[in-house]
Protein backbone atom coordinates (compact mmCIF):
# COMPACT_ATOMS: atom_id res chain seq x y z
CA UNK A 1 0.00 0.00 0.00
CA UNK A 2 2.84 2.33 0.99
CA UNK A 3 4.76 1.46 -2.15
CA UNK A 4 1.70 2.22 -4.32
CA UNK A 5 1.41 5.64 -2.73
CA UNK A 6 5.12 6.32 -3.26
CA UNK A 7 4.90 5.28 -6.92
CA UNK A 8 1.85 7.51 -7.52
CA UNK A 9 3.55 10.44 -5.75
CA UNK A 10 6.69 9.94 -7.85
CA UNK A 11 4.70 9.94 -11.11
CA UNK A 12 2.79 13.11 -10.16
CA UNK A 13 6.01 14.74 -8.93
CA UNK A 14 7.80 14.07 -12.22
CA UNK A 15 4.81 15.35 -14.20
CA UNK A 16 4.74 18.51 -12.06
CA UNK A 17 8.39 19.13 -12.93
CA UNK A 18 7.63 18.61 -16.64
CA UNK A 19 4.68 21.02 -16.41
CA UNK A 20 6.72 23.72 -14.67
CA UNK A 21 9.54 23.28 -17.20
CA UNK A 22 7.16 23.54 -20.15
CA UNK A 23 5.41 26.61 -18.74
CA UNK A 24 8.68 28.42 -18.01
CA UNK A 25 10.13 27.50 -21.40
CA UNK A 26 7.05 28.84 -23.25
CA UNK A 27 6.01 31.82 -21.17
CA UNK A 28 9.31 33.35 -20.06
CA UNK A 29 10.61 34.29 -23.57
CA UNK A 30 7.18 35.74 -24.42
CA UNK A 31 7.21 37.84 -21.26
CA UNK A 32 10.72 39.12 -22.05
CA UNK A 33 9.77 39.97 -25.67
CA UNK A 34 6.52 41.66 -24.59
CA UNK A 35 8.41 43.70 -22.03
CA UNK A 36 10.89 44.82 -24.70
CA UNK A 37 8.00 45.81 -27.02
CA UNK A 38 6.39 47.76 -24.20
CA UNK A 39 9.68 49.60 -23.53
CA UNK A 40 10.01 50.40 -27.27
CA UNK A 41 6.44 51.71 -27.39
CA UNK A 42 7.07 53.81 -24.28
CA UNK A 43 10.21 55.26 -25.86
CA UNK A 44 8.37 56.06 -29.11
CA UNK A 45 5.56 57.79 -27.21
CA UNK A 46 8.11 59.69 -25.14
CA UNK A 47 10.01 60.74 -28.30
CA UNK A 48 6.77 61.96 -29.91
CA UNK A 49 5.94 64.09 -26.89
CA UNK A 50 9.45 65.55 -26.92
CA UNK A 51 9.50 66.22 -30.68
CA UNK A 52 8.69 69.65 -32.04
CA UNK A 53 9.75 71.48 -35.20
CA UNK A 54 9.34 74.98 -36.55
CA UNK A 55 9.41 75.96 -40.22
CA UNK A 56 11.22 79.26 -40.76
CA UNK A 57 12.87 81.33 -43.49
CA UNK A 58 10.77 80.24 -46.46
CA UNK A 59 11.91 81.69 -49.77
CA UNK A 60 10.63 80.94 -53.27
CA UNK A 61 13.16 81.91 -55.96
CA UNK A 62 11.86 81.57 -59.50
CA UNK A 63 13.06 78.71 -61.66
CA UNK A 64 11.99 79.48 -65.22
CA UNK A 65 8.20 79.49 -65.24
CA UNK A 66 8.18 77.51 -62.00
CA UNK A 67 9.74 78.17 -58.61
CA UNK A 68 12.00 76.53 -56.07
CA UNK A 69 11.18 76.30 -52.39
CA UNK A 70 13.92 76.77 -49.83
CA UNK A 71 13.13 76.69 -46.16
CA UNK A 72 14.62 75.94 -42.78
CA UNK A 73 13.32 73.50 -40.21
CA UNK A 74 14.36 74.26 -36.65
CA UNK A 75 14.30 71.48 -34.06
CA UNK A 76 12.64 72.99 -30.99
CA UNK A 77 12.26 69.60 -29.32
CA UNK A 78 14.78 67.40 -27.59
CA UNK A 79 14.91 64.43 -29.95
CA UNK A 80 17.37 63.89 -32.81
CA UNK A 81 15.41 63.61 -36.06
CA UNK A 82 16.38 61.79 -39.25
CA UNK A 83 15.69 64.11 -42.18
CA UNK A 84 15.60 61.39 -44.86
CA UNK A 85 12.37 60.14 -43.26
CA UNK A 86 10.72 63.57 -43.30
CA UNK A 87 7.72 64.12 -45.56
CA UNK A 88 7.15 67.42 -47.31
CA UNK A 89 3.68 68.18 -48.63
CA UNK A 90 2.87 71.25 -50.67
CA UNK A 91 -0.84 71.86 -51.01
CA UNK A 92 -1.38 68.29 -49.88
CA UNK A 93 0.94 66.53 -52.34
CA UNK A 94 4.14 64.78 -51.29
CA UNK A 95 7.28 66.30 -52.84
CA UNK A 96 10.82 65.02 -53.31
CA UNK A 97 13.41 67.11 -51.52
CA UNK A 98 17.04 67.51 -50.59
CA UNK A 99 18.39 68.64 -47.25
CA UNK A 100 21.71 69.90 -45.95
CA UNK A 101 21.94 67.37 -43.12
CA UNK A 102 20.98 63.78 -42.45
CA UNK A 103 20.15 64.49 -38.82
CA UNK A 104 18.38 67.43 -37.23
CA UNK A 105 19.72 67.90 -33.73
CA UNK A 106 17.90 69.74 -30.92
CA UNK A 107 18.31 73.54 -31.10
CA UNK A 108 19.71 73.19 -34.62
CA UNK A 109 18.34 73.77 -38.09
CA UNK A 110 18.55 72.06 -41.46
CA UNK A 111 17.85 73.61 -44.88
CA UNK A 112 15.44 71.88 -47.21
CA UNK A 113 15.13 72.43 -50.93
CA UNK A 114 12.28 71.46 -53.26
CA UNK A 115 12.85 72.35 -56.90
CA UNK A 116 10.80 73.14 -59.94
CA UNK A 117 7.36 73.53 -58.41
CA UNK A 118 4.51 74.74 -60.60
CA UNK A 119 1.74 77.14 -59.63
CA UNK A 120 1.28 80.54 -58.10
CA UNK A 121 -0.54 82.20 -55.25
CA UNK A 122 -0.81 80.99 -51.70
CA UNK A 123 0.49 77.54 -50.83
CA UNK A 124 0.45 75.42 -47.68
CA UNK A 125 3.66 73.67 -46.72
CA UNK A 126 3.46 70.75 -44.31
CA UNK A 127 6.52 69.04 -42.90
CA UNK A 128 6.17 65.74 -41.04
CA UNK A 129 9.03 64.26 -39.04
CA UNK A 130 10.07 60.61 -38.99
CA UNK A 131 7.88 60.02 -35.92
CA UNK A 132 4.78 61.74 -37.31
CA UNK A 133 5.02 65.22 -35.74
CA UNK A 134 4.08 68.04 -38.14
CA UNK A 135 4.34 71.75 -38.70
CA UNK A 136 2.53 73.92 -41.25
CA UNK A 137 3.59 77.09 -43.03
CA UNK A 138 1.60 79.22 -45.45
CA UNK A 139 3.56 81.09 -48.11
CA UNK A 140 2.73 83.15 -51.18
CA UNK A 141 4.64 83.00 -54.46
CA UNK A 142 5.39 86.52 -55.61
Amino acid sequence: MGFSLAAAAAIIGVSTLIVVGTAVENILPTMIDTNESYDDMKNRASDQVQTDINITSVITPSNGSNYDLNFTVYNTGSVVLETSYFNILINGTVQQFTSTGSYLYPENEVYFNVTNLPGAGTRILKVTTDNGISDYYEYTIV
Partner: protein
Amino acid sequence: MGFSLTGTHVIFFIASVIIAGAVSGVFIAVTTNVSTSLSDKGDRVQDQLDTDFTIINDPNNIPTSGSDYLFYLKNIGGKKLATTNETFQLLIDGDIVATANYNFTDSSIQPSEYTTIYVEETLSAGDHKLKIVGPQAIEDEFTFNI
Protein backbone atom coordinates in the same frame (compact mmCIF):
# COMPACT_ATOMS: atom_id res chain seq x y z
CA MET B 1 -4.92 -16.33 1.64
CA GLY B 2 -1.28 -15.15 1.26
CA PHE B 3 -1.63 -14.99 -2.49
CA SER B 4 -4.86 -13.01 -2.14
CA LEU B 5 -3.07 -10.38 -0.06
CA THR B 6 -0.21 -10.10 -2.53
CA GLY B 7 -2.66 -10.03 -5.41
CA THR B 8 -4.59 -7.23 -3.75
CA HIS B 9 -1.38 -5.24 -3.26
CA VAL B 10 -0.43 -5.73 -6.90
CA ILE B 11 -3.90 -4.63 -8.01
CA PHE B 12 -3.70 -1.54 -5.78
CA PHE B 13 -0.24 -0.76 -7.10
CA ILE B 14 -1.30 -1.05 -10.74
CA ALA B 15 -4.46 0.97 -10.10
CA SER B 16 -2.55 3.73 -8.34
CA VAL B 17 0.04 3.92 -11.12
CA ILE B 18 -2.71 4.05 -13.77
CA ILE B 19 -4.60 6.80 -11.90
CA ALA B 20 -1.42 8.81 -11.23
CA GLY B 21 -0.44 8.44 -14.90
CA ALA B 22 -3.86 9.60 -16.09
CA VAL B 23 -3.86 12.59 -13.73
CA SER B 24 -0.33 13.51 -14.86
CA GLY B 25 -1.26 13.17 -18.52
CA VAL B 26 -4.24 15.47 -18.17
CA PHE B 27 -2.20 17.89 -16.06
CA ILE B 28 0.61 18.05 -18.66
CA ALA B 29 -1.80 18.37 -21.60
CA VAL B 30 -3.81 21.18 -20.01
CA THR B 31 -0.72 23.09 -18.90
CA THR B 32 0.88 22.76 -22.33
CA ASN B 33 -2.27 24.10 -23.99
CA VAL B 34 -2.57 26.99 -21.53
CA SER B 35 1.10 27.96 -21.85
CA THR B 36 0.91 27.77 -25.67
CA SER B 37 -2.18 30.02 -25.63
CA LEU B 38 -0.46 32.45 -23.27
CA SER B 39 2.55 32.50 -25.54
CA ASP B 40 0.32 33.20 -28.58
CA LYS B 41 -1.50 35.94 -26.68
CA GLY B 42 1.88 37.42 -25.72
CA ASP B 43 2.90 37.46 -29.39
CA ARG B 44 -0.31 39.30 -30.28
CA VAL B 45 0.20 41.83 -27.49
CA GLN B 46 3.76 42.31 -28.72
CA ASP B 47 2.46 42.94 -32.26
CA GLN B 48 -0.09 45.45 -30.91
CA LEU B 49 2.62 47.32 -29.02
CA ASP B 50 4.91 47.39 -32.07
CA THR B 51 2.22 48.58 -34.50
CA ASP B 52 1.43 52.25 -34.98
CA PHE B 53 0.65 54.39 -38.01
CA THR B 54 -0.79 57.78 -38.87
CA ILE B 55 -2.30 59.62 -41.81
CA ILE B 56 -0.02 62.55 -42.70
CA ASN B 57 -2.18 64.32 -45.29
CA ASP B 58 -2.92 68.02 -45.14
CA PRO B 59 -6.61 67.80 -44.10
CA ASN B 60 -7.57 70.77 -46.27
CA ASN B 61 -5.76 69.56 -49.38
CA ILE B 62 -6.48 65.95 -50.26
CA PRO B 63 -4.72 65.19 -53.55
CA THR B 64 -6.49 63.27 -56.29
CA SER B 65 -5.42 61.10 -59.17
CA GLY B 66 -8.20 60.61 -61.69
CA SER B 67 -11.20 59.53 -59.64
CA ASP B 68 -9.05 58.40 -56.69
CA TYR B 69 -8.31 60.29 -53.51
CA LEU B 70 -4.76 59.90 -52.23
CA PHE B 71 -4.00 59.35 -48.56
CA TYR B 72 -0.51 59.04 -47.14
CA LEU B 73 -0.04 56.40 -44.45
CA LYS B 74 3.13 56.66 -42.36
CA ASN B 75 4.50 53.82 -40.25
CA ILE B 76 5.39 55.34 -36.87
CA GLY B 77 5.55 51.97 -35.11
CA GLY B 78 8.50 49.72 -34.43
CA LYS B 79 8.01 46.99 -37.05
CA LYS B 80 7.40 46.54 -40.74
CA LEU B 81 3.76 46.99 -41.73
CA ALA B 82 2.18 44.80 -44.37
CA THR B 83 0.01 47.20 -46.38
CA THR B 84 -2.57 45.18 -48.25
CA ASN B 85 -6.34 45.16 -48.58
CA GLU B 86 -6.39 42.19 -46.22
CA THR B 87 -4.39 43.83 -43.42
CA PHE B 88 -6.07 47.26 -43.64
CA GLN B 89 -9.74 48.18 -43.68
CA LEU B 90 -10.96 51.67 -44.52
CA LEU B 91 -14.11 53.40 -43.33
CA ILE B 92 -15.24 56.78 -44.60
CA ASP B 93 -17.91 58.51 -42.53
CA GLY B 94 -18.59 55.19 -40.83
CA ASP B 95 -19.17 53.22 -44.03
CA ILE B 96 -16.70 50.52 -44.88
CA VAL B 97 -14.89 50.98 -48.19
CA ALA B 98 -15.00 47.86 -50.36
CA THR B 99 -11.58 46.25 -50.65
CA ALA B 100 -11.81 46.54 -54.45
CA ASN B 101 -12.01 50.34 -54.09
CA TYR B 102 -8.64 51.00 -52.51
CA ASN B 103 -5.07 49.90 -52.99
CA PHE B 104 -1.61 50.67 -51.68
CA THR B 105 1.44 51.62 -53.73
CA ASP B 106 3.65 49.40 -51.56
CA SER B 107 3.00 45.93 -50.16
CA SER B 108 4.87 46.80 -46.96
CA ILE B 109 6.53 49.77 -45.27
CA GLN B 110 9.42 49.88 -42.83
CA PRO B 111 9.28 52.11 -39.71
CA SER B 112 9.32 55.87 -40.60
CA GLU B 113 8.40 55.15 -44.24
CA TYR B 114 5.11 56.02 -45.88
CA THR B 115 2.89 54.62 -48.57
CA THR B 116 0.09 56.08 -50.65
CA ILE B 117 -3.45 54.72 -50.50
CA TYR B 118 -5.56 55.25 -53.61
CA VAL B 119 -9.22 55.38 -52.59
CA GLU B 120 -11.90 55.28 -55.27
CA GLU B 121 -14.94 56.83 -53.62
CA THR B 122 -17.43 59.54 -54.50
CA LEU B 123 -17.33 62.14 -51.78
CA SER B 124 -19.51 65.21 -51.48
CA ALA B 125 -18.01 68.61 -50.70
CA GLY B 126 -17.54 69.19 -46.99
CA ASP B 127 -16.07 67.42 -43.99
CA HIS B 128 -15.43 63.69 -43.90
CA LYS B 129 -13.84 61.25 -41.52
CA LEU B 130 -11.50 58.49 -42.64
CA LYS B 131 -10.84 55.65 -40.23
CA ILE B 132 -8.09 53.19 -41.02
CA VAL B 133 -8.02 49.91 -39.14
CA GLY B 134 -4.76 48.04 -39.46
CA PRO B 135 -3.17 44.88 -38.13
CA GLN B 136 -4.14 43.86 -34.57
CA ALA B 137 -7.08 46.32 -34.84
CA ILE B 138 -4.77 49.33 -34.39
CA GLU B 139 -6.57 52.32 -35.88
CA ASP B 140 -6.16 55.95 -36.84
CA GLU B 141 -8.84 58.53 -37.58
CA PHE B 142 -8.39 61.46 -39.90
CA THR B 143 -10.88 64.28 -40.45
CA PHE B 144 -10.52 66.04 -43.78
CA ASN B 145 -12.26 68.51 -46.02
CA ILE B 146 -13.08 68.17 -49.71
